[in-house]
């Protein structure tokens, strides 16, 4: 894979990832396109620019770790892993089919280069902190990044972990909240409001940044600040749009867990050309 810090190059990769998301969920006839599309810039910036990782040596001890705690956004992770060269691009269309390595939610039994099987919400932040503690015990410099959904952080375990991470100063962990403001049943603010969200993370002791989660240079600056922050973990609240990049999906909760029809796939791919 070709690494790059150039935002324009990264934006081109984002578009390709979005095409995969639309195509694969369309082929699967189920899945979660909305929350996959909202997290594209975050994952692309991490995998092509920020993370220390090597598809040719996927289990190197010093690699940075990435956990997709909002496991239902598996399509964005699969598209990224495939484009990085970890897994085949051709079979992305087998998403959710029996026997596919691209299971409904990320599964280490099928894709051993994944750091964790996820899918049950609220658990990934704790995992990331456990990994961060292990790195610290080993005096290792690798870092752990974990992407959380906004609806996901309604889970109580997130706040157990938030307390733990700040109290134990696990500063080699960076959490990103994909704040697309929609969950399955509707708007987050109408289901169980998270506001004031950044203030909550600050109150829990995290170094907290708020960025436009589709602004690649802003994400790059935030990841750099997270890495430079010592003595406490960092939470990046990434303000995003659910369904980003596909006009008819943007901001519509329907696309949390519904796949596009063949006609809708065609329409979306035209927009993403």
């Amino acid at each position: 894979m070709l690494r790059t810090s150039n935002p324009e190059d990264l934006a081109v990769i984002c578009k390709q990832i979005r095409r995969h998301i639309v195509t694969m969920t369309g082929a699967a006839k189920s899945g979660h396109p909305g929350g996959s599309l909202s997290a594209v810039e975050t994952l692309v910036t991490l995998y092509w620019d920020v993370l220390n990782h090597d598809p040719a040596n996927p289990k190197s001890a010093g690699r940075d770790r990435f956990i997709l705690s909002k496991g239902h956004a598996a399509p964005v992770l699969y598209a990224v892993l495939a484009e990085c060269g970890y897994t085949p691009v051709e079979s992305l269309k087998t998403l959710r089919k029996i026997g596919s390595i691209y299971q409904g939610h990320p599964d280490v039994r099928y894709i051993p280069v994944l750091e964790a099987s996820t899918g049950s919400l609220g658990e990934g932040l704790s995992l990331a902190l456990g990994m961060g503690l292990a790195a610290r015990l080993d005096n290792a410099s690798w870092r752990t990044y974990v992407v959380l959904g906004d609806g996901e952080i309604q889970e109580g375990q997130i706040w157990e972990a938030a307390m733990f991470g700040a109290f134990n100063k696990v500063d080699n962990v960076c959490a990103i909240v994909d704040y697309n403001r929609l969950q399955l049943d509707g708007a987050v603010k109408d289901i169980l409001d998270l506001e004031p969200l950044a203030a909550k993370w600050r109150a829990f002791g995290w170094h907290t940044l708020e960025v436009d989660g589709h602004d690649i240079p802003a994400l790059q600056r935030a990841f750099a600040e997270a890495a430079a922050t010592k003595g406490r973990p960092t939470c990046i609240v990434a303000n995003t749009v659910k369904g980003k990049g596909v006009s008819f999906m943007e901001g519509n909760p329907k696309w949390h867990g519904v796949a596009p029809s063949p006609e809708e796939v065609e329409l979306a791919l035209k927009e993403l050309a």
Partner: protein
Amino acid sequence: MPVNTKFEKKMGPATREAFGRTLAELGRENPNIVVGDADLTKSTMTTYFGKEFPGRLFECGIAEANMVAIGAGLAMAGKIPFVASFSAFVMTKGFEQLRCLVAYPNVNLKVVGTHSGISIGEDGPSQMSMEDLALACALPNFTVLSPADETATKWAVRWAAAHVGPVFIRTGRPKAPVVYDSSATFEAGKAVEVAAGTDVTLVATGLLVAEALLAAGQLAEEGISARVLDIHTIKPIDEAALAKAAAETGALVVAEEHLVDSGLGVRVAQALARTVPAPVEFIGLDRFAESGSPDELLDKYGLRAPQIVEAARRAVARKK
């Protein structure tokens, strides 16, 4: 080899105490051993480890779900974590994390439940774990251990540390009767025949092994020769030893400090249904208990030798 023909009840350390001591020994031997606890270090006895290796004991506060998941993360990054709490809490509040983050991806985490069963005593039903074996056995990839005394617990903890894969170890609060001399050896998945016999087999685990040995002594006085099997490994269960017992003695009793409809008994019944069906009588719990001393509770809820003796008579009477 039968190790007890005439059993006399002598008390040894609690199995949680044996766990804590052994964990500290392991800490000296292997720097990758780390520990998580949820504000109960002085009760689970991880305090021995924590005193020697404060940087390797992660106090998680009263947050068992997070503790289990932190342990899973440590294990995924190459550590050998033991997480401990009262069995009633770690297995229920941590169950979903055990299911998705440990069992499903087959992560190398060791879970130790202490204060299991009703023999925790005065604290009462909210702290009493009567379903931990059922929950642990419901987790694929897990090995489930239920040692009877200090010696068996030392083995269980050492075996868990050496084994690659998730393990649950059930331990208790009160002093445990000595079943084994310190030179006894164990094998995971292999029952120990702690008393030889030909007329009936008493199958037991944990504190009930000593009660079964006492019962065997009383049955001998009636002319009934009772074999006693200690099932220290609940999963995978020793189907061969159970089938052999059914074939050779023709009737069995299962005794456990656990809900009778979801613990060792049902697993024994399943093993026998698959191999050598035989009459089985079951001793266990069928309701929430109450506060009291451990001895008072074991008496009141019928987890003693006299109840095992009665059940053995019933089982023998059912033989064709």
